[in-house]
């Protein structure tokens, strides 16, 4: 158990050190050493506890008290900040939450002690590895990135110590979320991640950043309040406050169902599902490592982790239908909205929302097969998406734009980066790479769930997904003859992180059966009390071999053939009036440059239109089903 505590505390210590370090060199050293320790300790923990789920007796009044005190301080801070920036909604919600926690602490929590405050099982181990490895890689990347960032924003005060403090604190809090058995603890860490994210989004302190950070805060406070309400329901009705007891209880009981729905709601907010998805979009104003760390690979994963954790309680009940519907619709609508975006980070944000939707929907189905797909999606998504964010960040610093249109011919200008990006995009939607395997499993299990809305959502959603990724891929692949190479100045930390993630993406594609049999299947067997039998069609050896063979072919094929042609290279056809590939002779002999843009179909998939539909429908679904559950309706 000490090793787990060590793992949880290291990032926080590193954070405190980084807060007081002003020197760039020292910061680099500390950040890198801390990252190495975090990676190693998480691997160690995974190695020692894999396949051996256990809870740890760990209870201390002092820590509980400290947490409560911290919560009160944070609550007061939120109220103060809300008033200072004239965001009264945040203050009001902060006040509500504060009152609720105080009431909870003194009136309801009496006598309910959780003896085993910590636990670890295979699902937590997966999360620990995601947080430890990917999180640390992103932190390493951030060192190089923030150096450039500061140079691009010279006139601003150097707040990097604060930035790194937040990043590393955040890692600690994430560990807390995935390892706490005590719901009160979990709630505390949950709120910490919200606040870290709030501060990181507002990092640049521009007006836009502050507005968006408050949007994030307000929405996540709603989630926090739902979380707290669930805790209150559980304490008041049943007198327990730990996850193990919750999972062991009967989901048909009315108030258990309500509590589960409230917890799912908290998860839905955190994982930026509709109608709460706008906070994630707003969060894209933050420096790119923030987006990668918080908004693609880890923090939003806390939300889906929660829903996945609860998935055994979601089978075929109101809570299940709520998560399925919200997840499915979010997947479809967010994918559609992604078409209309040309800002690479927003495309990534929408795609993140969509993929999280898929995971949430998988969890909502609540069958082992679906949950298998959900966890696989989570793993692949964490690796691939953080890689995509980081490459967009690097591209932005070197080509001066994060617009996909400006990435025209990136293949020539930044070949290595373009290849990393192409691996990432291929990993996001293309057979035989990661996401697709899980999507395949998801599709099968959705059909098995016989919930027609979900089937329609995934069918149309996948079509849309291929569309927006391929058009981006095309832009990257485009060969522009006159462009110069401009990737000489990329920092080595950035290459290191990108390289590791790239290798990880490919390795995962080849090794996913091992990952599945070592971690996910045992967890599912434990949780659902079923053998892995149901998963056989999915992992049917024939299909698996073919998929892996396809992957190997696709990886090896480029080596001897890519770009090696003996053919004569000739200019493009330009109706006979071309000057070179990018310009032609217009009327009156003038030279006209060619500009080409992708299609965005705003009239069809415009953001506003999608947002209105999505928010209205999902909000109605959530409210109606929760009300129904409170009223005692059951199906």
């Amino acid at each position: 158990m000490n090793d787990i505590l060590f793992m949880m505390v290291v990032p926080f210590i590193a954070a405190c050190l980084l807060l007081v370090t002003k020197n760039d060199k020292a910061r680099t050293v500390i950040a890198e050493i801390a990252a190495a320790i975090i990676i190693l300790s998480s691997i160690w923990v995974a190695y020692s506890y894999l396949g051996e789920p256990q809870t740890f007796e760990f209870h201390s009044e002092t820590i509980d008290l400290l947490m409560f005190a911290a919560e009160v301080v944070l609550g007061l801070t939120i109220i103060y900040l809300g008033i200072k920036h004239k965001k009264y909604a945040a203050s009001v919600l902060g006040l509500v939450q504060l009152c609720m926690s105080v009431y909870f602490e003194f009136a309801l929590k009496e006598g309910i002690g959780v003896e085993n405050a910590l636990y670890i099982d295979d699902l937590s181990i997966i999360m620990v590895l995601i947080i430890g490895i990917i999180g640390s890689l992103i932190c390493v990347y951030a060192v190089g990135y923030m150096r450039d960032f500061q140079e691009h924003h010279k006139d601003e005060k150097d707040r990097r110590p604060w930035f790194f403090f937040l990043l590393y604190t955040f890692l600690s809090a994430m560990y807390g979320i995935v390892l706490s058995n005590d719901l009160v603890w979990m709630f505390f860490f949950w709120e910490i991640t919200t606040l870290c994210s709030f501060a990181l989004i507002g990092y640049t302190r521009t007006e836009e950043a502050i507005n968006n950070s408050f949007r994030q805060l307000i929405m996540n406070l709603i989630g926090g309040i739902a979380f707290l309400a669930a805790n209150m329901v559980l304490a008041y009705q049943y007198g327990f406050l730990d996850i193990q007891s919750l999972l062991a209880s009967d989901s048909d009981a009315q108030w258990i169902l309500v509590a589960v729905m409230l917890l799912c709601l908290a998860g839905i907010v955190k994982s930026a599902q509709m109608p709460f998805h706008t906070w994630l979009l707003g969060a894209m104003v933050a420096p790119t490592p923030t987006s990668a760390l918080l908004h693609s690979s880890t923090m939003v994963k806390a939300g889906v982790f929660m829903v996945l954790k609860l998935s055994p309680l979601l089978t075929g009940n109101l809570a299940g239908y709520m998560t399925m519907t919200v997840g499915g619709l979010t997947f479809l609508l967010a994918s559609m909205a992604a078409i209309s975006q040309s800002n690479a980070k927003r495309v990534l944000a929408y795609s993140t929302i969509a993929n999280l939707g898929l995971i949430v929907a998988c969890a909502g189905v609540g069958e082992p097969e679906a949950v298998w797909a959900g966890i696989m999606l989570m793993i692949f998504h964490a690796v691939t998406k953080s890689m995509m964010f980081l490459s967009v960040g690097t591209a932005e610093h070197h080509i001066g734009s994060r617009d996909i249109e400006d990435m025209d011919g990136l293949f020539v200008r930044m070949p290595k980066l373009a290849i990393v990006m192409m691996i990432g995009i291929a990993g996001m939607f293309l057979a035989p790479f990661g996401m697709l395997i899980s999507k395949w499993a998801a599709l099968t299990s959705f059909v098995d769930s016989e919930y027609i809305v979900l089937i329609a959502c995934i069918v149309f959603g996948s079509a849309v997904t291929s569309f927006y990724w391929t058009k981006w891929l095309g832009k990257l692949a485009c060969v522009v003859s006159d462009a110069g190479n401009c990737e000489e100045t990329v920092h080595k930390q950035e290459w290191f992180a990108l390289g590791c993630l790239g290798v990880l993406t490919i390795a995962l594609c080849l090794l996913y059966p091992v990952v599945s049999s070592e971690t996910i299947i045992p967890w599912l067997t434990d949780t659902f009390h079923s053998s892995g039998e149901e998963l056989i069609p999915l992992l049917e050896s024939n299909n698996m071999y073919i998929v892996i063979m396809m992957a190997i072919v696709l990886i090896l094929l480029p080596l001897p053939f890519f770009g090696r042609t003996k053919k004569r290279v000739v200019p493009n056809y330009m109706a006979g009036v071309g000057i070179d590939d990018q310009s032609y002779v217009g009327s009156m002999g003038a030279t006209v440059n060619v500009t080409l843009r992708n299609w965005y179909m705003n009239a069809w998939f415009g953001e506003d239109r999608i947002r209105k539909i999505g928010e209205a429908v999902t909000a109605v679904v959530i409210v109606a089903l929760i009300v129904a559950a409170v009223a005692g309706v059951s199906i």
Partner: protein
Amino acid sequence: MSEWIWIAMCILFVVVGPLVGCVLAGIDRKISARMQNRVGPPLLQPLYDVKKFMAKEQITPNKVQDFYVMVFLLFTIVTGAIFFAGMDLLLVIFSLTLAETFLVLAAYSSGSVYSQIGAQRELYVAMAFEPIILIMAICYYMHTGSFSVSDIVENGSMSVVPLLGVFIAFIFGLTMKLRKSPFDLSLSHHAHQDIVRGMATEFSGRTYASLEVAHWYESVMLLGMVALFFADGTWVGAVVGIVVALLAWVLEIWIDNGFARMTWQTALKSGWIVGLVLGVGNVAVLLLI
């Protein structure tokens, strides 16, 4: 025993598939000509064309396009091979998408205006078509309990009866996939130019020949999918399937000659509406019975 049949089918497809596809393409040109009161080219004209392209001077707009087209051809063959080997239908669909993506990349990579617009139009058509084919796989699964082509065939009854809605939707989608008018937006097989043939603008010589050969394979596989609706594991089913597939081919030629090209909006809208009404409707019916 039955395993050997599937392996034989798979090998047969890889070896004979392109010849069949070539003859089909020849029939297409011949029938189209007759419909227009013309004599038309010799039946094996597509083969002569490909031979000619192979012998031409090899040029390319850039050093990578070849590779993309090679992968496209390879995975088109793999897709068909998986299908005719009786394996998973979803795998077939995903592999098809993969092949498609490489074709689109090949077009994008040239950086030519025409190719890029063509590539995007191709993506629209793919987006319109994909729901239909996915729903088809889902309905097979709901009906027979398996995604595997061999299980579907050995199911013992013709799937077309409970899957009628999807069958019609698939025939509709076939028009897009076979690049027939009214939905031949990106790569019309008629001698057009500029945008309507945008995808192919920068392909020439051997690259263009590979594209043609890939289309032959693709046509055979798609007709195989039509036949699958009627396959019930007996000779009767096989014969009925092949006959219907050929009828579908003729129907597509007729549609091709009888309709004007429509806009991409119409393609997308109609593809989705058909997918939603007939496809999802069929899912609903299967859920109820």
